[in-house]
């Protein structure tokens, strides 16, 4: 958790994915499907708790038409992605996006439990 994150300097949106450039000169590609499947909102998160519902969520996302999202910063700590279709609720901390960029589980294996941590 205490890992020092490089600062995201550039986010280039492409048709199917986005290229992230950090201030340590590293560059990563994150697909929109991966990004949307990792949505941290209260609707999507519980669906990742079980394998079946996680697969179903993935299928739902993959069936959506390809589109470039609108991206906005949330303070200095997160990004929000606005889509024409599908869920746009999640606020993605930079730490979460960095996990996705590095192909790590952004939930760190923890199941989502609403309000009872």
């Amino acid at each position: 958790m205490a890992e020092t994150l490089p600062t995201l300097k550039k986010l280039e949106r492409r048709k199917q994915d986005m290229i992230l450039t950090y201030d340590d000169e590293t560059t990563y590609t994150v697909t929109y499907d991966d990004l949307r499947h990792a949505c941290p909102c209260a609707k999507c998160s519980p669906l990742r708790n079980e394998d079946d519902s996680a697969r179903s969520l993935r299928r739902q996302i993959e069936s959506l038409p390809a589109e470039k999202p609108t991206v906005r910063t949330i303070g200095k700590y997160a990004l929000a992605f606005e889509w024409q279709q599908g869920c746009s609720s999640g606020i993605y901390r930079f730490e979460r996006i960095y996990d996705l960029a590095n192909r790590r589980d952004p939930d760190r294996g923890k199941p989502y439990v609403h309000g009872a941590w």
Partner: protein
Amino acid sequence: MAMLTLFRVPETGGWVEVGMIRGPIMADSPVSINLPVASNAAPAGPSAQEQKQMEQAYAQMKRKMAMEEIGRKIKHKIMVLSGKGGVGKSTVSTGLALSLAQQGFTVGILDIDITGPNVPKMMGLDGRRLHVENGRIHPAQGHLGVKVISMAFLLEDEDTPVVWRGPIKLGAIQQFIGDVEWGELDYLVIDFPPGTSDEPLTVAQSLPDIDGMVIVTTPQQVALLDSRKSITFSESLKVPVLGVVENMSGFTVNGTAAPGTEVSIAAPGGKTLTTTADDGGKFSVTLDIFKEGGGKETAQEFGVPFLGALPFDPGFVRGGDDGVHRIVSEPEGASAVAFAKVVEAIQEQLSDGADGGLEII
């Protein structure tokens, strides 16, 4: 008879033609008119149950519209939360509201802590009742003109607990949002009960365009652990974290001694703090009663802003009990200054362009 032909049943015909008037009609004689309860043209009215459902749907729609209207009239909406109880959340909420009011903003506080509403007492509004006009609730006005809505105003006596199950509680919250005549506000500060339960979820879903949440914590590990939950909670609510405030951060002891005297004070954790009295014979030492810097560390760990530390000030306890908030009784005091800094940090977060220089293509 000619006059009677003028009376018609809509879409059916005249009273005479449809047989509502029968028998001989003579001048100056009474006529018999058979008025049907329901004409063939009009369908049977809704049942009592349907009527009730329609009324409920109408009330819900009206409330939703009212909530949207309120959303437009209030420029900034700030939620104040903590994962743990007893960290001084209501003190921080009232402090933020008063500090903003000191700067000349119009401010309201919505006390959503239904089970333990303390805000009215802190705002000098103990025992007050709300004014209701044309079905709209008008907030009470506390110190510096801050508008206050709280469940405490509806309680018969303060010793009676509110024992409500979820749906009733949530209905009350929606009513507190939709049926209150706030007027134009620069800021609405919403004070929640501790934890990450239904109340913030209901507010986040009911009130549009919430700017963000302020997480209140104290420096000790247990409180920090819970504030981490609150930060994670914000992601699921789609409400940004404006930042973390560390309350009860340090207690400053002020004293006098002969100029140049070295003063030693026994501090928590077996530490000894030393300081030297200045040329005027004054000295001050800050004791970190609940450790120090935990709020800042949590903020850094989660990459959210740290809004500032508020001192441990016994004056808040007295002020809370007497109904005169510390910021009101000592507007230039150390606590008021600390609150002003926190407010400044919040305003910086609310301003546009806080993107850290990220280029989005």
